[in-house]
């Protein structure tokens, strides 16, 4: 995609493990423009977090990354550690599933916010403090002034995630990556946090990547969705097309396997048999083939490439795609 704020080009992440090389991310291409939200969905272990860490250049030390990560015209894989550190607080921000990953347990909320702000913006203490209060209020924290003196453990999980979001937003980033920001939270709190992210994203015209395993989370809150399976993007489309004209059997199976509120109790769920492949044992054919009900012919010997369907925006990697218009 030209003119994208972020584009990931042919990214591969390899991790050495005792069982052999583990390919966590396998030739992934992605792009997201300013003001847009991209959803990345997939089951546990499919490589969502490794992909986002590749974007942030925060991979484990032993990991090997190839490919390019273009952000604002520069390739992040070639930047110095110092330049990256600046960029991360300032233009590129991240919110993790567990807010304690980004919060320091021994510092007050106020110290953490003020330090982050002062590190990246030219503000004096009073201004930084004022800004912290505004941010906490913006993310829906009651009595923000009093909160500045509190420690993370004195807050509930939902409140901590709000603080983590406030810190992530504090320097007006151009891109926010939210890696399962609500998975650990209750539904009512989840809805509040997702609303908050959507509101701030629009207000700031920020680009956002939401990573989740919940198709429900991406359906109403993203412009585009990439479905990952075994390290690869297997289908990518504008959100309405993905749900209404899905072409990839895995996407269809994933959606079908979800329990739904409008189905009568005791209706057997169309489960996907088996489980995802071992990422240290590369497969010759389509990695979904052992579980795919359409698998035939080349599926077990050749890897389908991610390529466009009817439109340039809708890509899928499958030899026997579901007929257009079916599967909604």
């Amino acid at each position, binding site marked *: 995609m030209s003119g994208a704020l972020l584009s990931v080009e042919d990214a591969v992440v390899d991790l050495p493990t005792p069982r052999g090389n583990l390919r966590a991310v396998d030739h992934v291409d992605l792009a997201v423009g300013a003001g847009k939200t991209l959803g990345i969905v997939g*089951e*546990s272990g499919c490589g969502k977090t490794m992909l986002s860490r590749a974007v942030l250049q925060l991979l484990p030390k032993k990991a090997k990354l190839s490919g390019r990560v273009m952000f604002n015209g520069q390739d992040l894989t070639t930047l110095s550690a110092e330049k990256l550190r600046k960029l991360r607080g300032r233009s590129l921000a991240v919110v993790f599933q567990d807010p304690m990953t980004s919060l320091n347990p021994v510092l007050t909320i106020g110290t953490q916010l003020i330090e982050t702000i002062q590190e990246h913006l030219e503000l004096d203490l009073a201004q930084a403090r004022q800004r912290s209060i505004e941010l906490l209020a913006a993310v*829906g924290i009651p009595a923000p002034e009093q909160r500045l003196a509190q420690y993370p453990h004195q807050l*509930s*999980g*939902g*409140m901590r995630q709000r603080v983590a979001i406030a810190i992530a937003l504090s320097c007006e980033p151009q891109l926010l990556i939210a890696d399962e920001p609500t998975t650990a939270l*209750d*539904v*009512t*709190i*989840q*809805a*509040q946090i*997702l*609303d908050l992210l959507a509101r701030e994203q629009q207000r700031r015209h920020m680009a956002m990547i939401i990573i989740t*395993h*919940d*198709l*429900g*989370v991406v*359906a*109403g*809150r993203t412009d585009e969705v990439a479905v990952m399976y075994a390290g690869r993007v297997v289908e990518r489309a504008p*959100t*309405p097309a*993905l*749900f*209404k004209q899905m072409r990839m059997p895995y996407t269809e*199976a*994933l*959606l079908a*396997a*979800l*329990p*739904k*509120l409008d*189905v*009568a*109790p*005791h*209706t*057997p*769920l*169309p*489960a*996907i*048999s088996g*489980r*995802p492949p071992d990422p240290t044992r590369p497969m010759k054919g389509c990695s979904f083939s052992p*579980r795919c009900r359409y698998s035939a012919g080349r599926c077990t010997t050749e890897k389908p490439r991610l390529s466009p369907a009817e439109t340039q925006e809708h890509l899928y990697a499958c030899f026997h795609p579901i007929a257009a218009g079916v599967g909604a």
Partner: protein
Amino acid sequence: MLQAASDPLMKVENLVVEYSVGGKTIHAVSDVSLEIARGETLGLVGESGCGKSTLGRAVLQLRQAVSGKVLFDGHDLTTLKGEPLRKMRRRVQLIFQDPIASLNPRRRIGDIVAEPLVIAGVRDPEERARRVSDVLSAVGLDPALVSGRLPHEFSGGQCQRICIARSLVLNPEFVICDEPVSALDVSIRAQILNLLEEMKARYGLTLLFIAHDLAVVKAVSDRVAVMYLGRLCEVGPSEQLFARPAHPYTALLIEAIPVPDPDVRPTQSVPVGEPPSPIAPPSGCRFRTRCPRADARCAGEVPELRVVAPGQFAACHHPLI
């Protein structure tokens, strides 16, 4: 008050369970009454910390209740002791949320599944082996392949199958499933939910199915009970409850679920705020600090569970129906 059909296998009456932490009392379960009919699945939903697991543990007598009764097949488990209690307990089993953590990492699968038989005094090794083999096959595992292996060789979904096998090996009548699929991936979740339904039919089980995911609960439950901060808000037949919730909290929970359909705009009406502390729950209706319908009466008077529709009960002064 009679909630279920005429033949309740499990009846919980005015159950109160508390914890004391640092001199303070946590009101984990407050005056909860429930009935579960023979052969029925009752779903229990509510947000983290509302007391679901505590209720489950108190039913099994793994946690002592402050007051109230737990009548299983007519016997009050809270007053039973020693051998009679052990006998009753065999008929009641529990499946946990974290399948991997609930299996002893150093024991072989065959021994793990046989353990309840050993405890129950089944002495004949051949009979034990036969029953273990039967139940492993029933949950979709090959006994010859899995019996000699250790838990770490299995995925989360397979570990949950093993836990289910272990809980069924004594042929229980009543099984409490505490978030049995929460730790599992979507594709595996459906397999395990289907398996639980099959096992229920095959072994003639009655289930208390605990989860925080309403769609998961609906998939397997005949009736659903909704809890908030230690109290029961609403109970009713699944379809009816989801179609026409009477309690504002049930309605909020339903509205907050993300729906996998891009045409359904996520609701923006979920009120900001979180459940208050169970150490000092609000007076009157415990939901009132987040309820859009709350008024003075809600602060002053605890709402009783009342009939709002056939088979449907809600504890609210101003129900939606």
